[in-house]
């Protein structure tokens, strides 16, 4: 059932109807044939048998009554009537025995009864004739009583035959009636079962294959429509937000563009200033180189001064030695003057003077030597300081070279930066154009979402109509 499609299921229900109809018709045909056969048996055999048995019983009763009349009323003419009635009984029973189609037991019983009634008739004729003719003598009474017993037996047998025939007929007819009733109820049950089965199939088919799927589809589509409505509402809102954001973005981009132009100008200025700084650095380096060369000259001069000072010191030593020797000579002169006494007195004074001069010359030479020593020391210090200054100028020169390099790098970087900013400006111009297009697209998206919302509402209304058509709100 679950795998069949709708057409197959509908054909299945129709098939069940047709099958039920065909079965019912075939069964009624079969049972009708059986009923006809049964009716034939009843009309051809059982009914005549019952009728004939009834006739036989009636005739027998008439015969008994006639014999009774004959005996009781002493009426000989009644004997003939009784004989005629008895003959009728015998004939009726023989007719029953010869009915074709009657059960063999019934035929044989009827034949035997016919023979026994014929015998009884013959005996009764004699006995009752004698009883009528000669009055009821004692012997005659005995015979009459015996006959009465036989008559009762025959009557009972006849009644039994009649009842059996009637019962046979009744059984046959009631069987027919039962069969007919069974057929009717079976047909009714068949019809009801077919109706119920086909109805169930149709109901299930409609419910499972049409209503159920349709309701499921409706539910699904309703859910989808709800989701679509929510989604389109969200889309509309998002579209509006995107549009607003894009407009804001466009404004921001314009600001950015303006800022970028400022940055670009600043960067160009930076580059210019870096180039200027480079030039200034080059000039500073040349100045420093000149200063270095001056320092070298200064150092050389200082070395010369130092050499001169050492030469002056040598000279001063010679002077000191001269003063020493002069002093000794003065001493020798004083000694000689003392020995020369008076003659020498004047000489001794000159010798003293010469010795003091020698002292003064030695002292002056020592003082000058000290000064020269200090000067030499100062010049050495100055040479050292000039070397330090030269080294410092060298470092300054090196630093200036590095600074120049850095400034050059800054200048080239500023150039690159300027180009990059120009590129950024172009990119932002494109972004601005794209943003403007995005704004319009977002507006279109919002409009489309609004249309989608209204379409979803339409879909929902159509679904409501479909639900009403299917008529299974809660199925």
């Amino acid at each position, binding site marked *: 059932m679950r795998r069949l499609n709708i057409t197959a299921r509908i054909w299945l229900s129709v098939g069940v109807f047709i099958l039920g109809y065909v079965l019912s018709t075939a069964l009624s045909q079969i049972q009708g044939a059986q009923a006809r056969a049964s009716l034939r048996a009843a009309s051809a055999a059982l009914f005549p048998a019952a009728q004939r048995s009834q006739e036989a019983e009636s005739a027998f009763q008439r015969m008994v009554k006639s014999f009774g009349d004959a*005996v*009781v009323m002493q009426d000989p003419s009644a004997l003939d009537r009784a004989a005629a009635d008895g003959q009728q009984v015998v004939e009726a029973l023989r007719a029953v025995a010869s009915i074709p189609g009657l059960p063999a037991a019934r035929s044989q019983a009827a034949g035997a009864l016919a023979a026994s009634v014929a015998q009884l008739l013959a005996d009764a004729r004699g006995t009752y004739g004698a009883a009528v003719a000669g009055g*009821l003598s004692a012997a005659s009474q005995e015979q009459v*009583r*015996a006959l*009465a017993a036989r008559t009762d037996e025959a009557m009972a047998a006849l009644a039994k035959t009649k009842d059996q025939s009637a019962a046979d007929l009744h059984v046959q007819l009631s069987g027919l009636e039962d069969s007919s009733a069974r057929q009717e109820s079976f047909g009714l049950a068949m019809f009801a079962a077919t109706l119920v089965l086909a109805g169930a199939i149709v109901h299930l088919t409609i419910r499972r294959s049409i209503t159920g799927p349709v309701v499921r589809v409706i539910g699904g589509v309703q859910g989808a429509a709800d989701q679509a409505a929510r989604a389109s509402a969200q889309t509309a809102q998002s579209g509006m937000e995107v549009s607003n954001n894009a407009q804001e973005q466009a404004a921001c981009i314009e600001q950015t563009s303006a800022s970028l132009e400022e940055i670009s100008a600043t960067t160009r200025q930076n580059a210019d200033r870096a180039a200027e700084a480079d030039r200034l650095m080059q000039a500073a380096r040349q100045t420093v180189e000149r200063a270095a060369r001056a320092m070298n000259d200064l150092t050389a001069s200082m070395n010369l001064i130092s050499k001169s000072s050492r030469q002056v010191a040598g000279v001063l030593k010679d002077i000191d030695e001269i003063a020493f020797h002069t002093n000794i000579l003065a001493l020798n002169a004083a000694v000689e003057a003392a020995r020369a006494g008076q003659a020498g007195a004047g000489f001794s004074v000159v010798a003293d003077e010469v010795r003091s001069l020698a002292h003064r010359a030695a002292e002056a030479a020592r003082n000058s030597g000290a000064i020269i020593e200090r000067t030499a020391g100062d010049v050495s210090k100055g040479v050292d300081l000039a070397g330090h200054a030269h080294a410092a100028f060298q470092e300054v020169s090196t630093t200036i070279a590095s600074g120049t390099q850095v400034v050059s790098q800054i200048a080239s970087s500023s150039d690159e930066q300027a180009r990059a900013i120009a590129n950024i400006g172009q990119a932002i111009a494109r972004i601005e154009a794209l943003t403007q297009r995005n704004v319009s697209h977002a507006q279109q998206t919002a409009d489309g979402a609004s249309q989608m919302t209204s379409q979803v509402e339409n879909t929902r209304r159509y679904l409501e109509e479909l639900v009403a058509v299917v008529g299974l709100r809660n199925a």
Partner: protein
Amino acid sequence: MKHIQILLIAAFVGMCAAVTASATDIKVIANPNVGASSVSADELKGVFLATKTSLSDGSHVEPVLEKDGPVHEAFVKEYLGKTDSALQIYYRSLVFTGKGSMPKTLAADADVVAYVAKTKGAVGYVSAGTSTAGVKTLEVK
């Protein structure tokens, strides 16, 4: 007319019979071995219509009839409510149906008395004046 004449004659004869023999002129007699000394009218009718073969005290009885005569006529009419011919038909129908036999029928009172006296259970009827030696007279209530 003929029927009416017959009826008139019958009525006349009946009246004469009633005059000649009434209930008081009939005695019901029985064999001495019958225990009862009296019998009801219904019992008596039953005995003579062969529907009873014993009395209420259990003694076996059988009827004895007279062949004809005023006593017979009176008895049949008085106690059985029938005519003689109807009684005969009644008995013959009993015989025909095998339910009984024709009753003992005697010609005169004396024969009846003699038969009753010698037959156990016999019940008969005779005129009131008949000698009833050897039998007992039953009182009919």
